[in-house]
């Protein structure tokens, strides 16, 4: 059988083939879970929120008109549901996106003292573990879902320049850690 696209699956579910919804779940579950987990920093909570997102999407499938991609529509649910779990109200979210604060700085407390060079992967994990929720969302959507800044701005309900700021600051923070750990030797 040819691989169905998202819209074909949705049509089938709407016709009453509820079990076909599993195909849609399979398509998005791992990447959506990665995003939720990195926003919440807690696996158990992330598992619950992931379930809620798929149930919410199913219940609102009627309102999905197909004028945007399903992925954009679905990730809006994922982003907003996760922020609600954190306890953020709509007003706080808007404020967070309007004033996205300062540069990120994840100082490495033992960068010079331990004498041990940290691996690139370790530094990446350190940054990802500490990224605030909106930064974590951008990094996951940009690097895992390979979305454009325009698509991400729709999901986060903010402007493209804001998305770029979050993306660039995350890169800059990792760059700083790499530099502190003298990994630049490998670049030469």
């Amino acid at each position, binding site marked *: 059988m040819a691989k169905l696209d998202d819209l074909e699956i949705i049509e089938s579910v709407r016709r009453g083939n*509820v*079990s076909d*919804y*599993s195909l849609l*779940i*399979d398509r998005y*579950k*791992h*990447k*959506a*879970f*990665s995003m939720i*987990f*990195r926003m919440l920093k807690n696996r158990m909570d992330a*598992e619950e929120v*992931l*379930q809620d997102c*798929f*149930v919410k999407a*199913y*219940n609102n499938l009627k309102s999905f008109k197909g004028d945007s991609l399903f992925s954009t529509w679905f990730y809006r649910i994922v982003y907003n549901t996760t922020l609600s779990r954190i306890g953020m109200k709509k007003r706080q979210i808007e404020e967070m996106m309007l004033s996205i604060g300062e540069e990120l700085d994840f100082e490495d407390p033992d960068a010079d003292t331990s004498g041990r060079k940290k691996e*690139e*992967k370790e*530094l*990446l994990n350190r940054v*990802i573990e500490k990224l605030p929720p909106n930064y974590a969302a951008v*990094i*996951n959507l*940009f*690097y*895992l879902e390979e979305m454009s800044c325009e698509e991400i701005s729709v999901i986060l309900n903010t402007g493209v320049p804001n998305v*770029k700021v979050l*993306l*660039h600051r*995350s*890169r*800059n923070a*990792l*760059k700083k850690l*790499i*530099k502190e750990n003298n*990994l*630049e030797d490998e*670049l030469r």
Partner: protein
Amino acid sequence: MKHYNDEFFNKMIDGEVDDSTRREFLHHISECKNCELEYLLLQKAHNSFQKIQIEEAPPTLNMMVLKRISRVVKPSEGGKKFFIGMLIGLTTMLLILFGYAFEVGKTLDPKDQKPLIDFSKIDLSFLQEFLNSFKSFSAVFTPNLVEP
């Protein structure tokens, strides 16, 4: 000498720099080791993010979601049917009641008003008999309690 910053390096990585600016920059880093290093570091951070790993969703997810969905679907449909049924039943009952009241109202001429049940014509002696038999029955089975 004009040096470059992270903002520019990010634009380079995102491919948002026009050709002539790009050529100028590449020429610059061939001579400026500091800008070259900073650019390569940011490039390394970008490459590192590209290796970001997928976190696996729990294997029970599909089952749990489908279970919750079917739980949501059935009661709401059942609830709808129950509601409509109740509505039809109530309306029918109300129609019958109003209809009856209307018919009764039409014939309620003070002259031919009769009670619906004439209790004076009913023989209630069987009730008395029943009570008597019950008394004697309880006297036989509980003599000590009734007449010590």
